[in-house]
């Protein structure tokens, strides 16, 4: 077996040579910058094999756990198979198990993959209805607790995927999936660190997964979950959250519903930013929601003193 492959293409590499230089020599367009392990412009991902630890320095724990490394300072000692950039992850068939409404415009979709689908709670997958209709959805399920993959899907009257799911799909049907992907999972968090989860709308899905994963892994520090919703009905899963908050001493649930009479008008970002002032410097944050919300929170949390490596975010883009 050759020491280096790019997908299924073997790449010649000399002893002590770096992965970056071998890729470039083979004519593969590998992005790069400083060539000194600093700018992170050359990240590659190992699908198989362990990159030397020193080639992963400076990357986030979530990236390390997924096999990412810096190609410009990686001289492999054992075989590495790289994931070609731009190639999509392998596809898999899944069977629809159930579809029901969590709120008037939020559908819970549960599917069962036909082969093993290893993932971390909080990651997302891609639903493939056809070659020109693919969308990413975060997973609300937990790999060890749930025998299914669960997604919370906002139903847009004009959304093509929404329409396809609600009109053409029923339990027992088959759908293709690809993935998983994403860095928004419980990794590199200290068990005693305050854990702050902030999401809006269906951004609750990955947070629900992360929350259960944190509890399973024995997180001891306080956990606070802020969920922003337009109205009471959209603050779905409120009951489950409240039950959990009563059962777990270290978990607090803060639904934020738009309401002019509420503190900060019920705005989830403003509420969380005000309430978390004292924990900024040492808490771990998970942010999930629309681009505007996530960008605002990330910036404000960082400017307020949060460490960038303690902020993980998952941005939901809306495609129709």
């Amino acid at each position: 077996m050759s020491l280096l492959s790019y997908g299924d293409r073997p790449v010649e590499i000399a002893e002590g040579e770096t992965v970056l230089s071998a890729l470039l020599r083979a004519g593969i367009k590998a992005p790069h910058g400083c060539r000194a392990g600093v700018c992170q412009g050359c990240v590659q991902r190992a699908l198989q094999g362990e990159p030397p630890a020193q080639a992963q320095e400076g990357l986030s724990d979530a990236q390390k756990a997924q096999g990412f490394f810096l190609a410009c300072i990686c001289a492999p000692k054992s075989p590495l198979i790289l994931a070609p950039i731009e190639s999509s992850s392998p596809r898999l068939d899944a069977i629809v198990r159930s579809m029901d409404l969590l709120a008037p415009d939020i559908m819970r979709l549960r599917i069962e993959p036909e082969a093993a689908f290893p993932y971390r709670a909080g990651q997302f997958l891609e639903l493939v209805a056809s070659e020109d209709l693919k969308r990413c959805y975060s997973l609300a399920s937990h790999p060890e607790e749930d025998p299914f993959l669960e997604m919370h899907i906002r139903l847009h009257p004009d959304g093509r995927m929404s329409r396809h799911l609600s009109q053409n799909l029923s339990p027992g049907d088959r759908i293709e999936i690809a993935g998983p992907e994403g860095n928004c999972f419980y990794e590199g968090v200290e068990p005693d660190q305050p854990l702050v989860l902030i999401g809006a709308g269906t951004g609750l899905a990955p947070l629900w997964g992360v929350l259960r994963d944190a509890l399973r892994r024995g997180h001891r520090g306080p956990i606070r979950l802020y969920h922003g919703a337009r109205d009471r009905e959209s603050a779905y899963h409120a009951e489950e959250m409240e039950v959990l908050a009563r059962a777990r001493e270290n978990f607090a649930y803060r639904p934020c519903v738009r309401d002019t009479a509420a503190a900060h008008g019920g705005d989830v970002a403003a509420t969380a930013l005000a309430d978390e002032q004292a924990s900024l410097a040492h808490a771990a944050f998970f942010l999930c929601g629309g681009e505007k919300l996530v960008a605002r929170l990330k910036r404000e949390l960082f400017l307020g003193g949060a460490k960038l490596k303690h902020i993980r975010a998952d941005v939901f883009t809306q495609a129709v």
Partner: protein
Amino acid sequence: MSTLYERLGGEKAVDAAVDIFYRRVLADGRIARFFDTVDMERQAAKQKAFLTMVFGGPANYTGKDMREGHKHLVEKGLNDSHVDAVLENLATTLRQLNVGEAEVKEVVTLANSVRDDVLNR
């Protein structure tokens, strides 16, 4: 004789400086728009590369890389006053980390030496 990078504390020192430095430039109304991006991790990695270079550490940038990397910013109006503001934030960051005045000077001089490349002249 140890290098400037070693005297400053190497990678550890860069790591300590990067959050402070990036936070400062983001909060500085004169230059924030050049650093404000959705992908803050990538931006922070760029700041780290920049700091490593001006600390005299390992980085193989050429004048050409500098020019290309900043072309789009020059088009957006990047000029000497912005470079001055960056240098000011750099010096303040170092002082905040208790770096001696002699070293601060050395770092700022190194940073200033790429001014023409950064401004594409």
